[in-house]
């Protein structure tokens, strides 16, 4: 089986090449089959691999040396262990479902763009696989940037719309800011220990000073901030909703944005050694979670709500990482992948039905028109709200428990965020599916349930959202923490907090109770009278996302642009080029002056000669003085 590992990323790559190069000549169905088929094949291989890893443990497979210098060797190698095989399953599994969904969702596109879409999607899966399979930070960085590229391409998929293009560019550039941090961390490792292989780095932690570790982990975390949309680099993710909805589901909810979590989990040994970073991660995660949740409350675009929800949930995961609950974070990645993909696809189904209308205020009462979508969407909402026994409950609970153990204040804010999550999700649910339809007649006329290629993934994901939690039922609820056990070889530094069962019951109780209360309030408030007017006062601040975009625009983008203009127009033209041209002008000027000596008058010429003779004689007499003067100063 190990010989086939390379097939996992290779198949999507082949799919990319076929779809990309032959997109004009292939029919849509062929494109869809190829696009989805390669992912399915990868999924199958991943599944086999998963069980193999489960039974016999992970391993590293070297292919060739990417860089082979005297001191620095960076192999192109894959590391298949518990952590990566789990992610492989998530990526290929959910990836396949979303490909399937896309086949129907994107059917209106022309052949060429349809092919392009699947090519991009395949390329994305390839990059994501590279990211998780790589056995060192450089290969991870390959995937890391690759997914950024695909994200760029897919956000700007409808490239005729300039706003989408701006969103795509913004996503890429903000990611790159984080990437610089990642790169610097890699350089730091190279400078200190000369290797970037996970195994070597983790084995050589003793060679790092604590400052090194803190710096490396913080820099890596900056990378994660960019990719996983944490404060302050989160603003791209809501804008990224410009892409097709399946893309949002796959990239901006289920997989790419969790790369940061994967990376930190992968580096858990380093992170556990730095208290400072851990606190930083926790605080940033928590702040993001809360901050994004507050914004989500007042958004009216169905995808924007989900986007902020994603940001918020990612914050949750970082909280988990920060408090040392690596398994919890990974678990939440998994469950979040299920229900957030579900929610996005559900939203996609709604948007599909509403003819690309995304404003919730123009929806309402869709329950009866879209029964399957409604049910599955409701399941997703419950799951994300953390109501037992849906999957979200278990994963969130694990993080909260760990947070409590670390610091009760973390836990408090976490619960408050959970309440907000439940509130805005059910605000979304209520506004969209309950009440009366508020759209135009034409839209009402066309409302229909989506085709089965779209509903089947919804159903599958809904099922996973329901049962996903049982993969890691904590002992307190009579489970075995099986995920925890499975991952333990890969996550060696996790500290298990042994809290008393009573405390745990209490914590669960509080969080569930808070969520339920929020749900009730939300349904009551919005099922009958949804907010249709523009928000006022503080709500307006929330609706405008705390004006963070404007802030960034004013303190970063505009100054940078004016600095560029200043350089271009003043320094470059007048300063440097002016100086260069000044030399030319000086020559011209002195030419004009010198030529005046050439008066055309013999008397003048001879006068100069006589004067020169006097000077030369003077120089000759005083040669010693002049020479010593020169030796002194030159």
């Amino acid at each position: 089986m190990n010989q086939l590992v390379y097939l996992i990323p290779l198949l999507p790559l082949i799919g990319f090449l076929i779809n990309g190069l032959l997109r004009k000549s292939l029919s849509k169905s062929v494109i869809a089959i190829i696009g989805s088929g390669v992912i399915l094949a990868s999924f199958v291989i991943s599944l086999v691999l998963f069980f193999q890893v489960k039974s016999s443990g992970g391993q590293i497979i070297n292919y060739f040396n990417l860089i082979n210098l005297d001191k620095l060797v960076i192999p192109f190698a894959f590391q298949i262990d518990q952590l990566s095989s789990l992610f492989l399953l998530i990526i290929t599994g959910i990836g396949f479902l979303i490909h399937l969904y896309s086949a129907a969702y994107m059917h209106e596109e022309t052949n060429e763009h349809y092919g392009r879409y699947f090519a991009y999607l395949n390329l994305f899966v390839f990059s994501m696989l590279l990211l998780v399979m790589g056995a060192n930070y450089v290969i991870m960085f390959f995937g890391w940037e690759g997914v950024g590229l695909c994200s760029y391409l897919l956000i700007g998929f409808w490239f005729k719309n300039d706003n989408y293009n701006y969103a795509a560019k913004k996503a890429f550039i903000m990611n790159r800011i984080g990437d610089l941090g990642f790169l610097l961390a890699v350089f730091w490792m190279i400078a200190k220990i000369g290797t970037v292989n996970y195994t070597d780095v983790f084995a050589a932690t003793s060679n790092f000073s604590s400052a090194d570790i803190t710096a490396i982990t913080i820099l890596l975390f900056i990378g994660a901030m960019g990719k996983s949309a944490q404060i302050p680099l989160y603003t791209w993710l809501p804008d990224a909703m410009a892409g097709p909805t399946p893309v949002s589901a796959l990239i901006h909810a289920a997989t790419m944005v969790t790369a940061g979590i994967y990376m930190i989990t992968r580096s858990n040994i380093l992170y556990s050694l730095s208290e400072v970073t851990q606190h930083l991660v926790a605080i940033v995660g928590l702040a993001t979670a809360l901050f994004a949740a507050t914004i989500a409350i007042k958004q009216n675009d169905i995808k924007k709500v989900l986007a902020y929800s994603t940001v918020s949930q990612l914050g949750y995961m970082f909280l988990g990482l920060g408090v040392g609950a690596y398994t919890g974070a990974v678990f939440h990645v998994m469950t979040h992948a299920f229900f957030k993909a579900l929610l996005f696809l559900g939203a996609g189904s709604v948007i599909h039905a509403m003819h690309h209308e995304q404003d919730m205020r123009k929806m309402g009462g869709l329950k009866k028109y879209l029964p399957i979508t409604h049910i599955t969407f409701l399941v997703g909402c419950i799951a994300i709200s953390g109501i037992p026994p849906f999957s979200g409950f278990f994963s969130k609970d694990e993080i909260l428990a760990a947070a409590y153990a670390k610091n009760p204040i973390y836990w408090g804010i976490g619960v408050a965020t959970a309440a907000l999550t439940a509130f805005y999700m059910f605000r979304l649910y209520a506004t969209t599916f309950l009440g009366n339809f508020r759209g135009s007649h034409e839209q009402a006329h066309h409302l229909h349930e989506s085709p089965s290629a779209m509903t089947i993934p919804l159903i599958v994901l809904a099922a996973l959202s329901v049962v996903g939690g049982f993969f890691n039922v904590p002992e307190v609820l009579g489970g075995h923490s099986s995920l925890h056990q499975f991952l333990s070889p890969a996550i060696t530094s996790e500290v298990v907090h042994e809290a008393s069962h009573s405390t745990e019951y209490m914590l669960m109780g509080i969080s569930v109770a808070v969520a339920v209360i929020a749900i009730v309030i939300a349904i009551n408030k919005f099922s009958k009278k949804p907010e249709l007017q523009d928000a006022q006062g503080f709500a307006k601040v929330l609706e405008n996302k705390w004006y963070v975009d404007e802030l960034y625009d004013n303190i970063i983008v505009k100054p940078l642009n004016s600095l560029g203009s200043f350089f271009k127009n003043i320094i470059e033209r007048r300063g440097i080029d002016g100086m260069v041209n000044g030399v030319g002008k000086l020559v011209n000027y002195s030419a004009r002056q010198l030529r005046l000596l050439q008066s055309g008058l013999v008397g003048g010429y001879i006068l100069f000669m006589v004067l020169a003779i006097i000077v030369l004689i003077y120089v000759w007499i005083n040669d010693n003085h002049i020479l010593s003067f020169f030796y002194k100063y030159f």
Partner: protein
Amino acid sequence: MPERAELGVMNAIIFSALIGVVMMLGGIVIKSNAGIKLLAIILLFILLGSHLAEYYDLFNIHIQTHGMLAKSRFGMFFNTIIISLTLLYVLLSGDEIVKVGTYGAEYFALIFFSLCGATILSSYNNLLMLFLGVEIMTIPLFVLTSSEKKNLKSNEAGLKYFLMGSFSTGILLMGIALYYGGTGLFAIEASKAANEAQQAFRILLPLGLLFIFISLSFKVSAAPFHFWTPDVYDGAPSVFTSFMATIVKTAGFIAFIKLFELRSVDMGYSWKILLPLIIILTLLAGNITAVFQQSVKRMLAYSSIAHAGFMLFALYNPNDFGKQGIMLYTVAYSLATIGTFAVLTKMKDYTYEGYNGLAKTKPVLAATNTIFILSLAGIPLTAGFFAKYYMLASALKESTSNLWLVIVAVLFAAVSVYYYFRVIQAMYFKDGNAETTEIKPFFKTLLIIIAALIIVIGLMPSLLLDLFYA
């Protein structure tokens, strides 16, 4: 070949004087311009032949010179060069020479006499011969400069040249007198100065040398004694400017080198100040002023001043590098200058605009002229590069502390590109319809040969320098 100071006078001097007379008399017999030109060419070949005969020890006239002249390989080689250059010059511009006025044969005779002066300068061993050589070389030039009698510019140039030339002769003579007062000799011998210099405060010899230095600087148009050059070169008929700027000027350098090779010691420290001072002033005056010119001819006059600045570097190290270098420079600079002037004389309009679009109307002229210009600018692959290279190297070889001077010099060389390339720009990149007089195929062939020579020397300067040692 041993240095045979006492033995012989060179064929070149005798023959150039004789053929001057023959030319003069021939003018009475032959009336057609073509005939005169042909005679001149034949006579030049004879001159070259007789000189080469002596060079290779086949035939020479022995005359006891009593130390007035000294035969040296250096001088002989230089003579070969200038005679060949004159031949080339006459071949190229012979038509133009006879067109200047009604005295075709006389012009040639004067050129030969001037050449005779140049050959004396390459072999003088006595200040009297230096003086006579300088005068024999320049007096015909006064005449040639003012030979376009109806042209006021030519008149003016002639008068200016004459007055200033006589003035510098006065200074030269005063210098020689002082030198004589200091040494009791006119013969130039190596200075015994090593301990002599430390003795009393000596005035006469150094002052005399300084005066001679000034006078020779005037002849080679080194700043600040260069003021006559642009006016005279500009005013004189172009063909004669070409002759003056090349053969005559380089002969001045030979005179310079011969004297100061032996005697610069007597100038003491001041030599280390005076020479760089003059070099920098010359480069400055030549290069900077040339930038502003509108007429190509006048630009070339200034550029010849700039080249004088470079050639002065040879005085730094007149022993080997300087001598080889000045040979190379003579050839490179003269070939290119003769070439550009030959093209210039064919142009109807001497301004830069007059060259606009020459590449389209006369591609061969433009292409060869480009090579000449590149050589003058000292671009590698052309002879001009090695010429400049030798000059710079001779300064650095003398002392590495001259680095600053060399850097200044190359910066001025960069400035020179500014005005040289305007010609190329005009010929190739500007639209226009450059008008020329009729161009004969022979003329074109010669231009191509000269251009080829420049390139060959630019690639393999040793071809030339090996001859020097042969």
